[in-house]
């Protein structure tokens, strides 16, 4: 399972409050990703990281920020949660070979409900 954990696994929060989701990996992978999954949209990339302090935006990055101060942790922050951010959030890592990105492996997901 590539040693990926996410916390919390479930969260209910109110509109306007800040929320931070954590992704933790134990196998020293360089690339980490945050996706959201919504009905009718599959999985969409929010942000990704290619190393400590190195991050970039995905296709749905508005309203989200990320930080990676250690190789093993990738944090996703909703500065002021909105109901449109109710979703299931997945973290993933890429297992690379010879410097190329290859297979992605996913964490168990976090269900976030914004009331």
């Amino acid at each position, binding site marked *: 399972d590539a040693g990926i954990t996410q916390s919390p696994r479930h969260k209910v929060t109110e509109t306007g409050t800040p929320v931070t989701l954590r992704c933790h990996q134990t196998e020293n992978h360089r690339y980490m990703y945050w996706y959201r999954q919504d009905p009718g949209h*599959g999985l969409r990339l929010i942000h990704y990281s290619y190393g400590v302090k190195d991050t970039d935006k995905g*296709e749905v990055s508005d309203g989200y920020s990320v930080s990676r101060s250690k190789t093993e942790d990738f944090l996703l922050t909703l500065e002021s949660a909105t109901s449109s951010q109710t979703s*299931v959030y997945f973290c993933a890592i890429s297992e690379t070979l010879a410097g190329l990105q290859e*297979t*992605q*492996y996913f964490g168990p997901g976090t269900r976030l409900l914004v009331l």
Partner: protein
Amino acid sequence: GIQVEQSPPDLILQEGANSTLRCNFSDSVNNLQWFHQNPWGQLINLFYIPSGTKQNGRLSATTVATERYSLLYISSSQTTDSGVYFCAVGGGGSRLTFGEGTQLTVNP
């Protein structure tokens, strides 16, 4: 960006039947992966297959990169094969674009 289209959107089978899931993509890719999301929401990587053919037990996949499609074959389906199958493609760098998936239901 790259567009990914999966078909069919829904598929219902009897246990023991075979099936073929298709993934079309709009541009050349150097990364293509198939995933299975089980009914509990867990996403499992099935294949990394930007070109060629691979097999793993009852599952196999073929990607024809020059014609921009990939096929996932499931033989002798079992109820545990139920879930959503996603195709994801990348044209460069580390970003993947996912299709909307095929919802597979295998009835006993």
